[in-house]
């Protein structure tokens, strides 16, 4: 609501600034409407529980969902401990001495570079290192590890920012009480940084679920049901890409798959919010 005390000039500026915000809402609503309106007709229980047939034009996407889930879990299993450890070190320990500060500069530069590398290049890296050098071949494991590398900068950046935003008075009071740094991190800093951790996780999962290019090189694109993490498999985003670009008549299932991807993302976000809130409340 506009304040009565606002001048004419301020009102014009406020309206001018409001327009881009409305445009963003408009784009989101348009995208959502497009995916929902075109994908809803293809969505059914059979679509979610059957294997793809006829190059994806018929059948369902159960193997695609399973492959996506496995790749996502592997990526998070790799990225979470590394990301959490790195963020805690950068925020709480790196500034303690000259060596730490020097190392932190290089760690941050590496993360910035990693964040800026195009996903197709990360895919090539994953292919060279995980598929060929480590001998994993086209596999869900290679895809998950590659995705883990991709989401690290996002995860570390948000968590470090969250930790640094915790007021210093908590740290000083804890030190004055002679409490160990580990206890302070576990009982005070991490619960306080929980919203940032949540934001980082949600962004990372969004990035991982949306990734196509890097996975084409690493996890492959066969549509069969994976039997282990060493099997090749196709994730939802690759399936959407393939149906839309390479399969005539695949548009309907492409939209239905895109809708499943969106709904999955929303579901994961809601569950994560609940889990992180419960954890933070328990720590307090």
């Amino acid at each position: 609501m506009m304040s009565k005390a606002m001048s004419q000039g301020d009102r014009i500026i406020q309206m001018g600034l409001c327009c881009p915000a409305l445009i963003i809402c408009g784009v989101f609503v348009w995208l959502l409407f497009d995916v929902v309106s075109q994908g809803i007709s293809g969505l059914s229980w059979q679509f979610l529980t059957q294997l793809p047939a006829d190059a994806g034009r018929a059948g369902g996407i159960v193997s695609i969902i399973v492959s996506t889930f496995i790749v996502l879990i592997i990526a998070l299993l790799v990225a979470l401990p590394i990301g959490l450890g790195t963020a805690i070190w950068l925020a709480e320990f790196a500034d303690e001495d000259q060596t730490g500060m020097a190392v932190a500069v290089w760690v941050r530069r590496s993360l910035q570079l990693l964040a800026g590398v195009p996903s197709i290049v990360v895919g090539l890296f994953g292919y060279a290192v995980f598929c060929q050098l480590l001998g994993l071949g086209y596999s869900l494991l290679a895809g998950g590890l590659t995705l883990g590398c991709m989401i690290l900068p996002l995860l570390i950046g948000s968590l470090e920012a969250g930790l640094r935003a915790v007021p210093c008075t908590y740290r000083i009071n804890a030190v004055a009480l002679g409490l160990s740094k580990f206890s302070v991190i576990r009982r005070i800093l991490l619960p306080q940084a929980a919203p940032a951790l949540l934001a980082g996780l949600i962004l990372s999962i969004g990035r991982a679920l949306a990734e196509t290019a890097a996975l084409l090189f690493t996890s492959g694109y066969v549509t069969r049901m994976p039997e282990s993490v060493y099997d090749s498999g196709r994730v939802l985003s690759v399936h959407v890409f393939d149906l839309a670009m390479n399969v005539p008549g695949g548009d309907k299932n492409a939209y239905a798959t895109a809708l499943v991807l969106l709904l999955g993302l929303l579901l994961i976000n809601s569950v994560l919010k609940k889990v992180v809130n419960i954890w933070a409340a328990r720590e307090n």
Partner: protein
Amino acid sequence: MTKSVAFGRKLQHTTPQDISLQSGPPAISIRNLGLSYGGHKVLKNINFEARAGKITALVGPSGCGKSSLLSVVNRLSDLQACKVEGEVFIAEDNILHSAVNVLKLRRRIGMVFQKPSPFPMSIRENLLFPLREYGVKGDQLEKTLEDNLRLVGLWDEVKTRLNDSALVLSGGQQQRLCFARCLSLNPKVLLLDEPCSALDPRSTQIIEALIWHLRESHTILMVTHNLAQARRLADDVAVCCLSDGVGSIVESGKTAQVFDFPAHPVTAEYLGFETAEVRSSD
């Protein structure tokens, strides 16, 4: 004794040596203490004694290094890139010695800060978290919790909502909770950095009564800008002043002596200036 540490460095010394504060409250003796940040001297030639079981007030104008001096006594200065020279004896032990176990030292020297800062957890956990960290278990936890909340006069106000967040308490209650948290570890020395400056008059009165109550069982070193408070509470006063941008203690002694018959012209000027200012504001 010289140290130079960056933020967070040497938070924990794992050497077994502990300061001997097992019996009654110890005297604090500060000798030739100097403190500098990156070559810039903040304190020099600090010499004074805080008597055992007494309240010593550190007074002086803002920026003269009173809080910095306080932070050396429990080695909080270790958290900053600073250089400390001289000696700080608590009873017979020089706590600036590198072999001192800093975690144990800080448990024995409680500190309460200007701004009340309970941890972002429940009232109960604010006390139990440090106690558990020090290995207190079972019924002793609840007993220590109740004893210390009673000691600071907070028990009746919070006993029905111990699981509520400590952050919903009023400023005065939060400060008393911080006192209780600090006292629950049974320190013999208390460092108080303007503990009432952020509080209303009623809360100030309660905290002052608490400090007075604690004086015989603790050696208390208190920074305050409130000269009336120093006069009310302190047995001894040390006056810190700036000279050429460096803080030093210009005079110390019994409260009545320093306030009524200041020996140093800088003290006289500081006390007179403050008195005139207080009178004019009245």
